[in-house]
């Protein structure tokens, strides 16, 4: 195993960051299942609309029906609350991951597939692997979430060119979005000459540059995370698309372990320096 590769994938991270991210993700799930993938509740009454995606077909997953939807919701939310509480974190965590993946597959199997859940699904599967497994395991789990976040941006830039062609940034795609679901704010932005055209270029270039988040640290990294958070805020204000399942995973880039939550002070290094974190300075493993 190459030394640099090894250090990049397994840079020690405080398990506290994994723990805090887990709590955020697990408490977010019930909200997601009611509001964002809440279409599943409606799909339970639409058996003829079931068009299972490949993974659902391979696993022979039945379509939504009222009993199944209630049971799945209860299992996932129950396990998520147990895991957030810190009990049985591994068993409860994997239960949530598998159950929520089924839920997400149901949400995407009725004619429309959304693309804001990649990082969340990845997080659900990797977070339990870091339970009581040390700082390198925590580093790998955090790295995976970070890669998923970056991949969602970079791959969507690629998809815009693959499907929309090189004329994408000079087209009227953002006007299309505003015309179909624009808010008052969105209509206002659209009325500014050139604003949507500039916006298309900024989004395409920023998505293309997103992998830089994996190789920067400190203020540059936080500025990058802040930029994407602002981008999602603007998108939400303009066309009510919030990408929240993805946005909460941006937290994986931040030194959450330094936050004083639940009365516990952040753990500090022996010299009073912040503990080593991925993307925030030293990547040499602590020996």
């Amino acid at each position, binding site marked *: 195993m190459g030394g640099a590769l090894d250090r990049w994938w397994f840079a020690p991270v405080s398990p506290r960051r994994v723990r805090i991210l887990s709590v955020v993700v697990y408490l977010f799930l019930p909200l997601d299942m009611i509001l964002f993938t809440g279409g599943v509740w409606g799909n339970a009454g639409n058996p003829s609309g079931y068009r299972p995606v490949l993974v659902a077909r391979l696993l022979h997953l039945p379509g939504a029906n009222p009993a199944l939807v209630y049971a799945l919701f209860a299992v996932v939310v129950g396990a998520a609350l147990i895991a957030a509480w810190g009990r049985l974190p591994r068993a409860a965590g994997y239960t949530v991951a598998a159950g929520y993946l089924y839920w997400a597959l149901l949400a995407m199997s009725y004619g429309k597939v959304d693309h804001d*859940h990649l990082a969340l699904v990845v997080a659900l599967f990797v977070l339990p692997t870091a339970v009581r497994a040390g700082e390198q395991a925590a580093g790998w789990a955090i790295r995976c979430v970070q890669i998923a976040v970056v991949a969602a941006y970079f*791959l969507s830039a*690629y998809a815009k060119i693959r499907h929309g062609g090189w004329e994408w940034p000079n087209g009227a*795609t953002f006007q299309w979005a505003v015309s*179909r679901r624009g808010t008052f704010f969105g209509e206002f932005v659209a009325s500014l000459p050139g604003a949507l055209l500039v916006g298309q270029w900024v989004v395409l270039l920023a998505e293309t540059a997103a992998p830089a988040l994996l190789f920067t640290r400190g203020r540059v990294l936080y500025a990058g995370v802040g930029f994407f958070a602002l981008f999602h805020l603007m998108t939400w204000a303009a066309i009510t698309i919030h990408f929240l399942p993805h946005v909460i995973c941006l937290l994986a880039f931040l030194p959450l372990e330094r936050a004083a939550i639940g009365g516990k002070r952040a753990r500090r290094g022996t010299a009073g320096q912040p503990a080593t974190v991925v993307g925030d300075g030293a990547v040499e493993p602590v020996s």
Partner: protein
Amino acid sequence: MRGGLSRQGKAWRLAAAGAVIAALGYGTVLGDDDLFPFGPMVQYAFSIPPDGEIKSLHLHAETAAGTRVEIPIEPYYVGIRRAELEGQLSRYLARPELLQGLADAHARIRPGDPRLTKLIVVTKVITLRDRRPAWTTNVERLSWVVR
């Protein structure tokens, strides 16, 4: 070394990450939405020419109260999302009776609203000139008299 992973612990983690990245790469370059969650990130991944058209589906309805209203195509009105109706429009065009399901869902979800007697699916076409909306027309696509 504190917090260190064994060789085996690292190996399976790298293999798993590699497999997921490979699946995503395949889905992005060659796949489609069917490969969820490994499909391409195609949100807004299409071009609208600066002098092109913007089309959107709308659901209009005549009610037992004698009014004609627009019904939002949302789970909390008709049990499905607009994008789902758009994704399956050809199926609805071939079998308009599928609209009965939307009317049934509406009656179930919003029992307090006036009963729907006829559903009309309309395509709203906004014509662009230099990336700005110039004019709008409505085209009726299919309709269904509710049983």
